[in-house]
């Protein structure tokens, strides 16, 4: 495995005297797709916030390429990692094209500016939003907004990509396409961290899965290692059956 680009060591987050995360350690390497899974309120989004530099952990540290994450400036970070947040509202009547172009703004006044057109065209294709560019962002449906925002994040072309529930608002085909797109990003040498709820979807595309439960890292490893019927039943409180399809586990609730 390649040397880790991002590594969290003993990260804790305490908000209002409540431990949201309790000494979680996690390495993310270039070229891998890591899925963060866990029940609602387990601390997945908080972990994503810590890894992306939005949140300063109350304890522990996060190192990006050997440097403390907190020591990077806003712009330096913007050139190293991009984040797709869960909610993506846009004020004023910006078009989808304008929103996607905004993803290029960290590269203003750099040689990478020359890639603008190509990066945007590639992002449009990958997120399947070419037909939406002229539309006003606020007039799009929830799923279309999510895909336009994904295109904005892809256009940013950073080495690390965080996607917080990118598939939540999407239909079946687009869910698959977004996960395939995330896998392609990883294949091109980026580190990709995806928060997903659909365990089978995570298992089908992720190289590694980190299962977070009650603010702690319950397990991390390949999907087959992490997704055992016993563990999922314990963490989610729901009996499941694990079926294998093409070497990947499929998680089915026992009904």
């Amino acid at each position, binding site marked *: 495995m390649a040397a880790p680009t991002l590594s969290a060591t003993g990260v804790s987050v305490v908000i209002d005297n409540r431990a949201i995360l309790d000494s979680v350690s996690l390495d993310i390497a270039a070229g891998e797709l890591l899925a963060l899974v866990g029940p609602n309120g387990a601390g997945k989004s908080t972990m994503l916030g810590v890894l*992306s530099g*939005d949140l300063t952990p109350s304890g522990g540290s996060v190192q990006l390429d050997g440097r403390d994450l907190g020591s990077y400036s806003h*712009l330096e*970070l913007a050139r190293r990692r991009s984040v797709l*947040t869960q909610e993506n*509202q846009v004020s*004023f009547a*910006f078009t989808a094209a*304008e929103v996607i172009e905004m993803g290029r703004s960290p590269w*203003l006044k750099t040689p990478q500016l020359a890639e603008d057109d190509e990066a945007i065209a590639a992002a449009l294709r990958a997120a399947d939003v070419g037909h939406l560019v002229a539309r006003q962002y606020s007039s799009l449906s929830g799923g279309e907004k999510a895909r336009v925002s994904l295109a904005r994040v892809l256009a940013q072309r950073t080495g690390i990509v965080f996607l917080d529930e990118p598939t939540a608002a999407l239909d079946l085909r687009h869910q698959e396409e977004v996960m395939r797109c995330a896998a392609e990003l990883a294949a091109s040498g980026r580190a990709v961290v995806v928060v997903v709820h659909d365990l089978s979807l995570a298992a089908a595309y992720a190289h590694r899965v980190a299962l977070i439960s009650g603010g702690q890292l319950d397990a991390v490893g390949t999907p087959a290692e992490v997704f055992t019927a016993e563990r999922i039943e314990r963490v989610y409180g729901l009996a499941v059956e694990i079926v294998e399809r093409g070497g990947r586990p499929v998680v089915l609730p026992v009904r």
Partner: protein
Amino acid sequence: MSRRARGITLSIVLAVVLVAGVLLSSIIGQLSISPSEVLGSLLRAVGIDTSLAPTDPIVESTLWVVRFPRIVMALAVGAALAVAGAVMQAIFGNPLAEPGVVGVSSGAALGAAAAIVLGANVAVLANLGSWGTAVFAFVGGLLATLLVYFMSRANGRTEVVTLLLTGIAINAFAGAGLAFLLFIGDTASREQITFWQLGSLNGSRWQEVAIVIVVAIVGIVIAALLARRFDLLALGERNARHLGINVEALRIGSIVLVALLTGVAVAFCGIIAFVGLVVPHIIRMAIGPSHRSLIIASAVGGGVLLVFADLLARTLVAGADLPIGMLTSLIGGPFFFYLLARQRKRSGGFA
């Protein structure tokens, strides 16, 4: 029409209306002056003597002592207020944020009125002269903006109801403060304060115009330089941060900018509300929300609006100089209703 074509059309329309407004304001008034005399006088001022130049010294002094400073003041104040509105809307992410509506103008007016009433008694203020009023207006406006901002922002979003309610509270408080100052002030101060409340460009002098112009130009240039950041802010604070924007610094800088632009306008011309609401809104409808062009076009549009509003203010009733603040509110009030109704239809009101 593409946005580019609309932008070019808007530039041409604004330029034509601007020249027309300046020319009309120069020739219309108690003393009628012909357009050729205006042109001749302007040419003479830049060192070109022509036969067009007015021979009557009264015409010459009417132009240079009364009308020109007033026109330039209208342009500068209109530009400052419109840009203050555009910047405020950018940082609040809401088209209803406007210095007059949310109480920045009345905060600034309270500061200015305090300077006037205290001015006679406090030596430092008396020495500062016009600048003292401006500084106090700026401080009053700044306090009001900070208050509005921290009251109505939560979790990176503006709560529109809180925003407007904060505006009501600040306007009420500043109104009471002004009433108190009216009560304790002497007759001269009272007249000045009444003038502030209504807003007027009457009696603009070149020294004051110079202050307003310097502040307005500096403010507008800074706002235009920040434009790209304002665009990214439309994505929400978190996303703007992910794209490399130092949101906290941008926010504080913009608040100072709004207070500066509003404060200087209010300090010399009183409360002229709704310019910052109406102008950016119309510009956005014409050329879209991108802030670079929005801010520049709003500056010109605000200036044009006030030149025409001031022309109306001094010619609508023969021999009387109506308060311009009254006129802009007369137009701006119904426009605000229209915006409310529109937002309500689209998103089911403000929840």
